[in-house]
């Protein structure tokens, strides 16, 4: 695990002090800490760690950059179900620079970002929303006259760690879908030498985003990541594994078409193209909008928005995607059936050809006549007839 240096800023109130000043009760604060610990999968003693961290640590400098994206990650984040999340993470933890939420603009904003990068060099967290266009010298995404690539590389240089929010920053999302005209590139491909946390999803679940930030704040280290750089606490299980409709899958009870009797029964949406079995996310547990629901609960299959290339794996309403290079609706089945039929036809033609071209070798050859052999010994009549 990457152990990071303590991100404390000297002086100033701690996070808890700031929250208290805003009128949050001790009880609500502890509830928040407990809640975050549960999301992170910490043991009960971990709650105390979170409480202590928030009581003693000061605001964490954050630079939050936006590139090719729709800001749905920010929108998700600020709609986190618990008000403290927005409070501590947006108002207090800081966001020294973020295009969406800051009051400053133009020169003022740029100066603010550079001041943070200078004063908190090696301490600040870089959070990135959106992909970086590489085509045409990055002309498709420029801020303040500089390309996204320049900005993110400069910002990453002094950052302690990089958090890539959402599918855009983790895998390129829709703008990286074929043919990817701007050559949209995820953050982990343009930044090297820094720990990068991929918080996947389009957008990621607000509580997952908050959980990652609280983890970084509490433990000063990168959470345990999977092979694709995603925090294992939230992305180690498939939507399928935690789906409340899973028993219907195992029982072979499937929705055959939207609106049918099986759909009314709430059967598994596997045959409607649900991507749950191949998608790693926490939707089945944390759910969305204060835990109200998630796509499958609302009767629609998962579209796999936290997986790389999910836009190219369409159509969303069939389990077997169209196959690249064979037109829009051609699946592996159609290709396989065509090749199989061609093979059978080829074998049949070859069999006919064999009888024509090799008829001299087929069957009885000179000197192999069975009539030259002695007549078979009496065999059939030996068996006594059964009554």
């Amino acid at each position, binding site marked *: 695990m990457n152990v990071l240096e303590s991100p404390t800023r000297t002086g100033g109130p701690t996070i808890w002090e700031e929250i208290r000043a805003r009128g949050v009760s001790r009880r609500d604060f502890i509830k928040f800490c407990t809640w975050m610990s549960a999301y992170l999968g910490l043991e009960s003693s971990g709650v105390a760690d979170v409480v202590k961290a928030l009581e003693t640590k000061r605001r964490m400098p954050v630079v939050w950059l936006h590139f090719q994206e729709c800001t749905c990650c920010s929108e998700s984040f600020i709609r986190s179900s618990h008000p403290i999340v927005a409070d501590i993470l947006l108002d207090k933890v800081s966001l020294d620079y973020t295009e969406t939420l800051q009051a400053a603009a133009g020169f003022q904003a740029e100066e603010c970002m550079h001041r943070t990068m200078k004063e908190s060099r090696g301490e600040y967290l870089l959070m990135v929303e959106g992909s970086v266009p590489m085509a045409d010298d990055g002309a498709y995404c420029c801020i303040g006259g500089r390309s996204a690539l320049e900005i993110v590389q400069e910002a990453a240089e002094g950052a302690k760690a990089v958090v890539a929010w959402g599918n855009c920053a983790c895998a390129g999302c829709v703008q990286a879908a074929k043919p990817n005209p701007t050559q949209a590139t995820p953050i982990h491909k343009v930044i090297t030498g820094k720990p990068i946390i991929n918080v996947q999803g389009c957008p990621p679940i607000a509580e997952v985003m908050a959980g990652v930030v609280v983890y970084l704040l509490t433990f000063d280290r990168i959470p345990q990541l999977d*092979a694709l750089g995603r925090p294992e606490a939230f992305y180690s299980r498939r939507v399928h594994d935690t789906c409340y409709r899973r028993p*219907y899958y195992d029982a*072979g009870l499937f929705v055959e078409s939207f609106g049918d009797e099986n759909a009314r029964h709430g059967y598994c949406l596997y045959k409607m193209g649900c991507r749950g079995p191949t*998608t790693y996310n926490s939707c089945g547990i944390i759910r969305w909008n204060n835990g109200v629901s998630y796509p499958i609960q609302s009767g629609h299959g998962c579209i796999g928005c936290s*997986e790389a290339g999910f836009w190219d794996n369409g159509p969303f309403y069939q389990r077997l995607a169209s196959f690249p290079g064979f037109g829009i609706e051609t699946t*592996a089945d159609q290709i396989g059936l065509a090749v199989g039929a061609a093979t059978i036809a080829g*074998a049949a033609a070859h069999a006919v050809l064999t009888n024509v071209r090799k008829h001299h070798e087929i069957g009885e050859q000179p000197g192999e006549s069975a009539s*030259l052999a002695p007549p078979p010994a009496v065999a059939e009549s030996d068996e006594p007839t059964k009554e």
Partner: protein
Amino acid sequence: MTPEASTVVLSTAAPVFKRVYVWELPVRVYHWLNALCVLVLTVTGILIAHPPALASATEASFSYWFGVNRFIHFAAAYVFFFNFAFRIYWGFVGNQFSDWRNFLPLRRAQFRQVWSVLQVDVLQAKNRPIEAIGHNALASFTYFAMFLVFLFQVVSGFAMYASMSKAWFPQLFAWAVPLFGGDFSLRQWHYLAMWFFIVFTIVHVYLVFYHDYVEGHGVMSSMVGGWKFVHPEMLKGNGRSWFPLSPRPPRNPAKPPPH
């Protein structure tokens, strides 16, 4: 049993066939176990991809057929893998016909035979005997390609399985998921490769019929009893072996053919 004894009643002009023990018992067991695994994996695999609507208007707690189907798929995958691994091992300890060196046409004689088989059996442009007692060189090379697909199915299958298992063995293959960009595309390729097995089986079964029909060497029954019937002169040429035989002694050198 001498050739004279077996053909005494036939004309002396008849070709004198000699029995050769080609496929040892472990190779035959491997073949049929493999065939069974491929059949089971294909059928259960198609069912996983396209589950039929067997029931509706029932409680999920009364049924588990899709789970059982998947279990059979995963269990058969283990058998398939270890059977495959055994066959590779047998390529190093088995007889000359199962030797691993058959499967790569690295020698000029093998390469020439690949060309020869293409002309004689596939295109049927020429007609001359192919000197091959075991697999011919083209067949062997096709099996090598098939082994690569076996390997791909094992890697992709266990990689997908790794996320639902805590066992160490599937975890060995978990690296394949990020390599293919995620479970979804890996599943897609795993599924497409299944069609290779279907097409392969069509060609394989057809060619067994073809060789049995045209050459009469008993290739079809050879995978049951192990014996093929060949012209003695074939035992002299490349049909006997592509490579200098290893110094290891033959198995049961004095064993007479069973009566």
